[in-house]
């Protein structure tokens, strides 16, 4: 697992949701598997364990440890249409969704092909 800061100093902070969303997309495209998380959130822990259990090495952004974390959380919440902003998973730069969607995709057998396609999983 790799933990990253969102390099907020490179971008001037803005309250615009659109700008936050752009940042999210940019971060999401940076790695094969990206998880937006909060370090104290246990559901986030569960989703991390899911990927690690499959042998995947996701990139994790802990929003509570990020100065612009609150804005990103807001943007994610907006993206998901309300509800909890974390955990949110991106694979291959594309949004998979919150825990619900990740689980459904996993049980439905579409998660593994997605991971292979993104190069996060071999075999």
């Amino acid at each position, binding site marked *: 697992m790799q933990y990253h800061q969102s390099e907020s100093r490179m971008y001037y902070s803005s309250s615009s949701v659109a700008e936050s969303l752009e940042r999210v997309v940019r971060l999401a495209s940076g790695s094969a598997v990206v998880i937006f998380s909060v370090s104290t959130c246990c559901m986030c822990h*569960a*989703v991390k364990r899911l990927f690690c259990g499959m042998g995947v090495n996701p990139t994790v952004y802990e929003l509570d440890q990020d100065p612009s974390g609150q804005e990103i959380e807001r943007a994610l919440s907006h993206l998901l249409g309300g509800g909890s902003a974390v955990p949110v998973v991106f694979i291959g730069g594309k949004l998979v969704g919150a825990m619900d969607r990740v689980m459904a995709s996993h049980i439905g057998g579409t998660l593994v092909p997605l991971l292979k396609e993104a190069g996060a999983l071999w075999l």
Partner: protein
Amino acid sequence: MTSPTTQFAPSSRLGLYEPMHQMSMWEEDTFDGNISPHAAAVCIINDADDKADYTSDKSAEDSRPSRAISDKIQRRLAQNREAARKSRQRKKVYVQQLETSRLKLAQLELELERARQQGMLIAGATAHMGLCGSVSSGIAIFEVEYSHWLDQQERKITELKNVLQTPLGDPELNVMVETVLSHYCRLFHMKRDAARADAFYLVSGMWKTPVERFFLWIGGFKPSELINVVMPQLQPLTEEQTANINNLKHLCMQAEDALSQGMEKLQQTLAQSVTLPGPGIRNYCSPTAFALENLESLEGFINQGDHLRQQTLKHMAHILTTRQAANGLVAFGEYFQRLRALSSLWSARSPGEPA
């Protein structure tokens, strides 16, 4: 012993009807229904001694000694016979009452067992109410609805089982399979509402029977368990089906592991937030607020657990043929019925009896 006085009648000649009751009680003690002339004679002698109890000696027959004695003996014999008869009658009535009571008791015990099953829900609610001191209407509603759900479930499973005996076509059978599946969805929906009211109630399985609770995983059945239980009932399976089911089981177990670890983390975090001293816990102003926030995430886990159950059911149905899916649902439904029956047997066990 035949004698003209065998028939006991309230005749004025004897003039002894009323006092005879007193006599027969007394007779009962002494003779226990057995009469012998010797005893009758003894009785007369004793009777002479207990003149205070014997109020019926006004008869003029006493003035004729030998005939009076014979009459007295006859009278006494009659009294004894009557006492014996009455005693037998009373015994008969008593035994009849005993038998009726026994039947009633057996019936009540059966009803009690049945009510206990239902009553466990109420007991759970009462305990819950006692503990938190306030009535959770959401939970009360859930318990009532769950009770109905169980009844409907039994009916649907029986119906499906019966239909499987007939050569019903796939389209019709499929409709029935879908009905049972959506019935499960109904349960998950109910649980979602209940989790919002009290997640702890669900996660501790208060609404389930003891044996079901033994298998509890995040407030319900373990999806991979479903596959294990049902698979033997689905034979014969094609190779492809077997591979798909094994794959589904593997994916299930990975998801279950992830959620279980999330729950463990929740326990750890909660424990820490409760034991960690005073101020200085990162972003939170109070450890209590932190703890409460974590408790709220319990609801999320229950929902994820149910979501996983729903997905497993759905995908199993996809992999199987209609008939196989129907068999699987019957097997699964009956599995839980047996767990519940086992709980009843367990509760009905009298203490001290060998298991």
